[in-house]
């Protein structure tokens, strides 16, 4: 839980000009705004924790504005305040909001943005004549720091504002930014930092992140916590069956198709609604279904990261102008862009985390004193439990914990090269500087040395690249240990590849004309957006899919474009994207387990869900708060083992992979497995329950923690997940270059594949630093090994085996997932649930 309100005792008074401005708007400065100002006047850095609508951004800029207003113009152009946000759209938006008070107070302060979209000539001009306030992103900061004149450019910097710090800090981008901050502290020693964050469970992690860390011990920034707004109003939607009083809740699936008429009614009953979904494919599906229901032709739009930026901007503009009734969006709109008059937030599917839900709810109603209203729409029975748990957490103001993060080595490699591009560096000095960044505080000198070697020559045990080294000794004087970039082309290479966001290779989707069944011509037609290459790889010409709200027919590839025509296919395949799939948070999972274990908490659940749990308690047993329920039962000619760890799909997939190997070794002859957010099912030719009873394979041994040793290594060696992760690390670390549109023309046979490099490196130098970075990434990301480890420790000696004669009610949802094709065929779900009736009848039969 949050610490109690901690407003600094001495509060500053506003300069008259500012006080008058507040007055003219009919406002009075808020306590936390004044608290930040007084801390800044004392030269202190601070973290501000405030809900949306609390005047957070103005609070962050106020000290800088007061400072600048006191300096007589004209001034020599010098950077005074730097603002960094995770989204370039946010930087642009905040600039607009800041220009208003600056203009109204008649201040002569220049404010500019610098993002990937800023034209080259303006960027050059900005370096020559910096604005007073610059709004930018972590990637642009890294680039600015890599110029030889970075010292002069940042030397005058007095004030730094980091927006949405909670969203940035715990990621590779956050690692890159932390290294940039360490550098800034060197270039501008008196720099004051202000971090702006939504409510988080552990604010100390962010307070540490803000401050340069001493070589031993730790330094925390000051903290200011704004009062929380009105308690939100949250309801969980459980629609009635058509024309009947019975509530309808599907057993499995994630589309929430059954609830869309009710969602449509909610849109009709409100002024402006934001409909959040978890994946881009779901966004496509929901918008299409809403339009099918849209008899009133309400303006309902779609917004997600794969749409062309033009399409996105159009939606954003229409939203700001208040002409839309609803926008269906993914997490691209989670963060602070001000949408004005949103009066209801709908969250389709499970919220996955308490903090994410709080953020999304905050999108509704930017006025603090009125409650935000939210509607949660569970797509299946387990999601009802998750939604109830998330609702309880949101009402209490509880947050998910953060997983402690150690700075990634591939990001460090990129930073080291960037430093060398700016001015020669002494490795010992740079090591101390890097360690002052909180994520890299535990980095050893040895590992740092390996990273520097990697940057220079690849750092291979077989040394023969010294003469191609990218770093050269500066050697300007005796004892000069500094290293510099070896050539201008190295610098060029760095600038082309900086940044930690590695997109999956994308193809443009372009609509071409068709006549009858045949496409005509390959040219012309508009671009609808971009789609992951791997998805298109799965399509054959003639296949249909949903994209940008249209059903499209794939016609073929031309260079870097996927050519499509419009289609009337009523049941398209639906894109299944990597992105946007969040695992269930540990905190929420614990709450769901608690809810299951405590019958008295079931009263808030809809009747079908309650009955489902009652029958489970009668037919088998309910999972407890601390144990692991394992059910074994025969079905058809197979035996099923279903367990309920509630650790999220990624962790369950890893667990499934490892358990299958063990079952195979023990002779259980496993055939396959399927993982959901809540449970894992494995089927085999022999009965693991019987094998346990005969002491052939005790479950305690099957679930023993040592599976994370050799079994994990052996699996990883073959896993394609690791190859994908390796590619990303290789790009971020600067080993291989990014692919830019147009570069593919060189043809595949003259380039190289990162898979081939991975295979060779793993065989010949398995301990190489890049493989370590890859493994660390996979363990925390795609594989979620940490969570598997925690779970195995938690349930040790607490495995509860239930041998049943048939499937249990709780096992039905995960069994329904069996047989789904690898591309999520959400459109097939209706068919699938028809086929599932037998299974449900079997599970719920009372005798």
């Amino acid at each position, binding site marked *: 839980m949050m610490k109690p309100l901690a407003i600094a005792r001495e509060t500053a008074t506003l300069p008259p000009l500012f006080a008058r401005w507040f007055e003219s708007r009919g406002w009075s400065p808020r306590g936390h705004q004044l608290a930040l100002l007084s801390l800044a006047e004392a030269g202190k850095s601070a973290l501000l924790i405030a809900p949306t609508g609390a005047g957070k951004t103005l609070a962050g800029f106020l000290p800088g504005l007061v400072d600048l207003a006191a300096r007589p113009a004209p001034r020599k152009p010098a950077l005074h305040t730097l603002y960094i946000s995770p989204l370039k759209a946010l930087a642009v938006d905040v600039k607009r909001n800041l220009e208003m008070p600056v203009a109204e107070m008649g201040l002569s302060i220049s404010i500019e943005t610098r993002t990937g979209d800023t034209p080259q000539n303006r960027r050059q001009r900005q370096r020559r004549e910096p604005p007073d306030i610059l709004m930018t992103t972590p990637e642009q900061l890294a680039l600015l720091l890599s110029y030889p004149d970075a010292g002069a450019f940042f030397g005058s910097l007095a004030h730094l504002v980091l927006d949405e710090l909670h969203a940035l800090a715990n990621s590779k981008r956050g690692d890159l930014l932390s290294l940039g901050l360490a550098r800034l502290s060197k270039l501008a020693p008196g720099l004051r930092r202000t971090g702006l964050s939504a409510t988080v469970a552990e604010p100390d992690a962010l307070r540490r992140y803000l401050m340069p860390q001493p070589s031993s011990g730790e330094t925390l920034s000051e903290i200011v916590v704004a009062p929380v707004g009105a308690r939100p109003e949250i309801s969980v939607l459980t629609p009635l069956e058509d024309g009947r009083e019975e509530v309808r809740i599907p057993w499995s699936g994630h589309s929430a198709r059954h609830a869309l008429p009710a969602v449509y009614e909610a849109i009709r009953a409100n002024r402006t609604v934001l409909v959040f979904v978890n994946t881009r494919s779901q966004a496509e599906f929901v918008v299409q279904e809403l339009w099918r229901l849209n008899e009133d032709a309400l303006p309902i739009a779609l917004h997600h990261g794969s749409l062309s930026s033009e399409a996105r901007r159009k939606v954003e503009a229409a939203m700001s102008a208040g002409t839309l009734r609803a926008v269906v969006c993914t997490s691209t709109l989670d963060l602070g862009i001000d949408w004005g008059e949103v009066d209801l937030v709908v969250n389709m599917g499970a919220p996955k985390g308490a903090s994410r839900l709080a953020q999304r709810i905050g999108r509704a109603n930017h006025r603090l004193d009125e409650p935000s209203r939210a509607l949660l729409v569970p797509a299946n029975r387990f999601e009802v439990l998750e939604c109830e748990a998330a609702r309880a957490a949101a009402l209490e103001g509880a947050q998910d914990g953060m997983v402690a993060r150690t700075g990634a080595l591939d990001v460090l490699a990129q930073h080291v090269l960037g430093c060398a591009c700016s001015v020669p560096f002494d490795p010992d000095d740079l090591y101390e500087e890097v360690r002052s960044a909180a994520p890299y505080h535990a980095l050893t000198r040895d590992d740092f040395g390996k990273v520097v070697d990697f940057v220079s020559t690849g750092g291979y045990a077989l040394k023969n690249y010294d003469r191609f080294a990218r770093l050269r000794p500066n050697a300007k004087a005796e004892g000069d240990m500094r290293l510099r970039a070896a050539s201008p082309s190295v610098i060029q290479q760095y600038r082309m590849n900086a940044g930690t966001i590695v997109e999956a290779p994308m193809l443009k989707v372009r609509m071409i004309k068709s006549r009858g069944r045949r496409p005509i011509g390959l040219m012309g037609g508009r671009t609808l957006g971009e789609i992951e290459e791997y998805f298109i790889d799965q399509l054959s010409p003639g296949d249909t899919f949903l994209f940008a709200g249209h059903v499209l027919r794939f016609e073929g590839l031309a260079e870097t474009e996927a050519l499509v025509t419009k289609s009337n296919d009523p049941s398209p395949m639906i894109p299944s994207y990597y992105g946007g799939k969040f695992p269930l948070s540990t905190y929420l999972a614990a709450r769901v387990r608690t809810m299951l274990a405590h019958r008295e908490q079931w009263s808030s659940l809809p009747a079908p869900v309650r009955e489902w749990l009652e029958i489970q308690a009668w037919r088998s047993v309910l999972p407890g708060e601390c144990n692991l329920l394992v059910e074994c039962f025969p079905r058809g000619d197979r035996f099923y083992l279903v367990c309920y760890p509630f650790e999220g799909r990624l962790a369950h997939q890893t667990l499934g992979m490892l358990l299958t190997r063990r079952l195979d070794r023990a002779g259980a002859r496993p055939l396959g497995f399927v993982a959901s957010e809540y449970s894992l099912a494995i089927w085999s030719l022999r009965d693991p329950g019987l094998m346990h009873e005969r002491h052939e394979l005790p479950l305690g041994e099957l679930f023993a923690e040592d599976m994370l040793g050799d079994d994990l290594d052996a699996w990883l060696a073959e896993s394609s997940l690791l190859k994908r992760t390796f590619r990303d690390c290789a790009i971020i670390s600067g080993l291989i270059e990014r692919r830019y549109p147009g570069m593919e023309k060189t043809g595949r046979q*003259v380039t190289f594949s990162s898979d081939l490099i991975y295979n060779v*490196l793993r065989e010949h*130098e398995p301990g190489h630093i890049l493989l370590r970075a890859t493994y660390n990434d996979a363990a925390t990301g795609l594989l979620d090994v940490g969570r598997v480890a925690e779970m195995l420790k938690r349930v040790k000696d607490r495995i509860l085996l239930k041998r049943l004669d048939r499937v249990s009610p709780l096992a039905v949802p995960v069994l329904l997932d069996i047989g789904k094709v690898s591309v999520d065929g959400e459109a097939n779900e209706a068919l699938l649930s028809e086929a599932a009736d037998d299974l449900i009848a079997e599970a719920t039969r009372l005798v």
Partner: protein
Amino acid sequence: MKDRRREARLETHPSLRVCGVSFDLMPEGAAWVPDERLLVVADLHLEKGSAFAARGIALPPYDTRATIARLEALVAKLKPQTLVALGDSFHDGNAEHRMDEEDAARLARLSKSLDWIWIAGNHDPVPPRAFGGAVMEELRLGPLTFRHEPRAAPSTGEVAGHLHPCAAVRVRGRRLRRRCFASDGTRMIMPAFGAYAGGLNVLDAAYDGLLPGFDFHAWMMGARTVIPVSARRLEAD
């Protein structure tokens, strides 16, 4: 029964006839003529990794080692009398000088252990002499001609490399892309053997005029065997 025997034969090494000469296709990416004790490999691209390093992309320097180790294993298994490397054995003219000493010694040892023939390629028009063996523009053996770059059809009896053929096929909705041997029975284009050598899809325009429409097979490299797939079943990249 007959089927099972055929399967068993497929499991070991399927054979492909080019102008009546029978080649066993090895899953390692080499072709073997048992009657002549002749082993053929193409496009080793030795020191491709270090060539990239010279341009500032420090790829792991183990590709030469990995390629030689696979060749050594094949030679140990099959005990060939003659080995033909079909050109582009060295990634560029300086490859020899960038090669690690130990790798160079291993290659020299291997090439001197049998009759080794370096066919000249576009990457290595003059293969280095340091590793022994004979250098030829092309080699004729009975009805067969071994050369680096395939010529426009008809080029009967030609065994060539250069293009790094690979093929993609969809099985139960999954797309598989592998290196392959491409042949219509009159000629054969070999897959690249080098550890860092990429692949070019056999349906690419670069193969126009070499293979007849869809009347050829891609012999795709699996983990333990080589699987022939009709060109009609293949997918472009």
